[in-house]
């Protein structure tokens, strides 16, 4: 059964000057929908290409099932691979594209016909079997590419930004379609994307990558609720970051003094000793916002500087009394709306916060995408 293991895989380009993937170890379980997520150039695609055999690692080992495949050519790995740019062979029609795998594996004519028909019916394109790829829309082409990858019979599906070239609406439809196929056919899927929302929507587990390393692996819930690094807190969803120092510690609460001598209570997390420099992360949707003071914990006063209506949500940019700037997002169909220059009070519960040590190279560097 196809589980996939990477053991300390490393890949450099340009004679070692660019480290694309740095000592990545990973275990993707059988029948799992696993996503590799990160900004451009983080090494996620190279990792996927190493699993497929399109790139050979400089160091480390790769297992598919129990088989060591590190230096096996792609055709011997029994995988299905879907490319961002579809890569449908332009010299063949849809049918020949889909049955390409069975053909080059010399399966019997009967089996080939059956599989080709099954796969095309599955993506609802059997009636377009005679079309040449250029005649199809992007969404259709990617569905053909998907059925082509599956027709070769592999239980391991590798998806390299499969939705990246599609329109937003199609992208949303197709992501659930792929997820359903993977479930129904009991496949193992590894999905590479830079779109965290896409990964959150379909994955069982996600690995967040940055600069060739894996920062955190977890379920969407874990990544959102318990980010282990500042970068993850910012990349999955969104976070406000407030700098401060620890003034008091109890079992699970740290009291932190922000700029302007504002004191707030937060989850203790990484804060370990008094007077330590920390960064407090709070998600924009974690705030309550009101024109009145309510005498609850963690109340901060401020002024509305910008209001942006985004459909589902309203997004406020606030200036706090200490001159820190904070983004607050509220559902547009619930509660009060505020205007430019309104004086407001925001509050948040300590258990909706995360505390991180202040990164040695600075907060902005830590959050950089490239």
């Amino acid at each position: 059964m196809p589980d996939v293991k990477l053991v300390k895989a490393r890949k450099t380009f340009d004679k070692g000057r660019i480290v694309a993937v740095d000592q990545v170890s990973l275990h993707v379980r059988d029948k799992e929908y696993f996503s590799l997520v990160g900004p451009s150039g983080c090494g996620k695609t190279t990792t996927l290409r190493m699993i497929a055999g399109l790139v050979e690692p400089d160091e480390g080992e790769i297992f598919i099932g129990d088989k060591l495949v590190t230096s096996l050519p792609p055709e011997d790995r029994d995988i299905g691979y879907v490319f961002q740019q579809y890569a449908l062979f332009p010299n063949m029609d849809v049918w020949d594209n889909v049955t390409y795998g069975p053909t080059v594996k010399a399966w019997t004519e009967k089996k080939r016909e059956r599989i080709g028909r099954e796969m095309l019916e599955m993506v609802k394109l059997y009636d377009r079997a005679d079309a040449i790829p250029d005649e199809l829309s992007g969404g259709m082409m990617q569905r053909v590419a998907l059925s082509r990858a599956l027709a070769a019979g592999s239980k391991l599906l590798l998806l390299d930004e499969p939705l990246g070239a599609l329109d937003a609406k199609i992208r949303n439809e197709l992501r659930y379609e792929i997820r359903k196929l993977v479930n129904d056919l009991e496949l193992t899927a590894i999905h590479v994307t830079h779109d965290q929302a896409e990964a959150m929507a379909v994955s069982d587990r996600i690995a967040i990558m940055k600069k060739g390393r894996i920062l955190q692996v977890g379920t969407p819930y874990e990544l959102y609720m318990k980010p282990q690094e500042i970068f993850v807190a910012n990349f999955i969803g969104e976070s406000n970051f407030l700098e401060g120092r620890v003034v008091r510690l109890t079992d699970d609460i740290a009291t932190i003094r922000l700029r302007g001598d504002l004191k707030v209570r937060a989850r203790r997390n990484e804060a370990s000793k008094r007077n330590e420099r920390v960064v407090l992360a709070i998600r924009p949707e974690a705030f309550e916002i009101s024109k009145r003071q309510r005498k609850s914990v963690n109340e901060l006063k401020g002024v509305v500087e910008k209001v942006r209506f985004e459909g589902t949500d309203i997004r406020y940019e606030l200036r706090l009394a200490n001159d820190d700037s904070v983004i607050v997002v509220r559902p547009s169909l619930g509660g009060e709306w505020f205007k430019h220059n309104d004086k407001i009070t925001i509050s948040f519960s300590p258990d909706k916060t995360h505390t991180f040590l202040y990164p040695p190279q600075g907060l902005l560097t830590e959050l950089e995408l490239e």
Partner: protein
Amino acid sequence: MAHGAYLHDLRFWKNRRFITSTFIFAVVASLCVFVLLPTFYLISFTLTRWTEVYADVFANPLIGDENWMQILRYLSFSLRLSIVAVALDFLFGIPLAYFLARKQFLGKSLLEDIITLSLVIPTSGFGVATLLTWTGVSGLGVLLGRGVVEASYVVPIVNVPFLMLLVHVALTFPYVVRTLQGKLENLEPIFAQASRTLGASAFTTFRKIIFPLSIPALFSGGVLAFARSLGETGATMVVASIHTTAPMAIVRWVSEFKLATASFLGFLLIIFATIAILLVDVFVQRIGAFKTPKSNTLARIGHQVLRTEKVLSGKLRWLKDIASLAAVLTIVILPIIVVLTSVGAYWSLDPDTGKYQGSVLYQLFGPPNYFSSLMSATLTSVLVAVISTYIAACIAIPSVYLIKRYRAGGTLRHLLRIPLIVPSSALGLSVLLLWGPSGLNLATPGIWLIVLTHIVFSVPVVMEPTIAVYEGSGISMYEGVARTLGATPYDAVETISIPMLKRGILAGVILSFTRSLGETGATFLVMGSDVTVPPLVVNMVESLAIPAALFASAYLIALSLILLLLFRIVVRK
């Protein structure tokens, strides 16, 4: 005030339109006069004097249709030679192009230079090198004490002279390699990758995906190689021994004043070349939507084929690379090395007979005094190359604009590719008949007639690389940007386009210069007493002054190496 501004605008606009149409007229007129008219004149010449031609070729009072029989013989011989040469080009060129496009390795650029070298090398010098390598005692035969083959040796089965085949492959395979390599490098690697992830071996991927997708490139490379082989004269005359190709026949008949017969053969060659390139252009355009035919019969033997391909993709894949590399080294590099070392061997004595009369020194500076003829030929060659390249560039650069900007440009481009593939001796004959004493009598055979001939092929030679750069650079977008920033069309051309095209223009100019320097077939017909270097080399071989020919060849090869270096600096920058 507003009215005045309006008037000013109007005048400016009218003025600009006037300039534009004058410009177009001038370019089109010079293209017609200098390039197209000479190319096609032979056709009209033959047709307007059809009775004369007919009488000479088909119904000669003395020999009947013997001339026609000879034309058929030479033509079929040339066609056979070219077809076999192109087949070998494919055999070695396809793996080589694939190898160059996919692999990075030490010495890759050297290998690419070697391939370019056989495009720029003056062919008569290369012919001497090949002749010496295979038939001389100082070449490959150094161990045997005699030549490896006789100069007249004919390869069995294909029935083609061995030496001619060698030079034709050496001089034409770069067309196949370079066109295909360019195509393969532009081919998205994901098609091959997709095929591999679906379970196809490297060899199967090549057969089912890469090969079908690069068929158009193979065809255009093949037709260029074929045309070059069909028209090759310089090297062919040197290694010809007792054989005669069609272009050689034209040269001979013109020197015997059998103009009617010569022009009929030239007419046929031009028609062949034109049809070939038009067919390929149409085919290549159509094949854009090329589909691999479905074949069920093949499926039955499929299993065996796939297994073999799997084996070939594994341990044996280096074999094809080594074989094609070895072929290139043997047919291109070896002769060059031999010719350079032989000059040393023949320097003061003929190593064979030990006589001073057979030495390079004696023939150059002794009574034969070939050195002074070589120097005056060099002067003529360089003068011709400079003048014809300069004029050609002046015509070609504005033509690029016409071709890319106007709808009729595509047709013009097709027409202008014809001089590139018309056998040059037919071209020379055409120019001779048009401008020469029997035509408009504008120039007598000599340096000016050579210049007029060389302009014909130099224009497309300068144009093609310039168009290639133009197409790859998004110039019209950048010009548009310049216009939105306030530049006039002429400012935009001057500040944006010309600097961007500079590399293409320079590459074209150097190629045109080398081609002019090495041209033999056409030059023979129009040079009169102003001999250039390549015909001089042929004359040396024909008068058996081998040591002098050796020296002149080494000299030409050295010259082309310098030009190659220049070309490389320009192209790689």
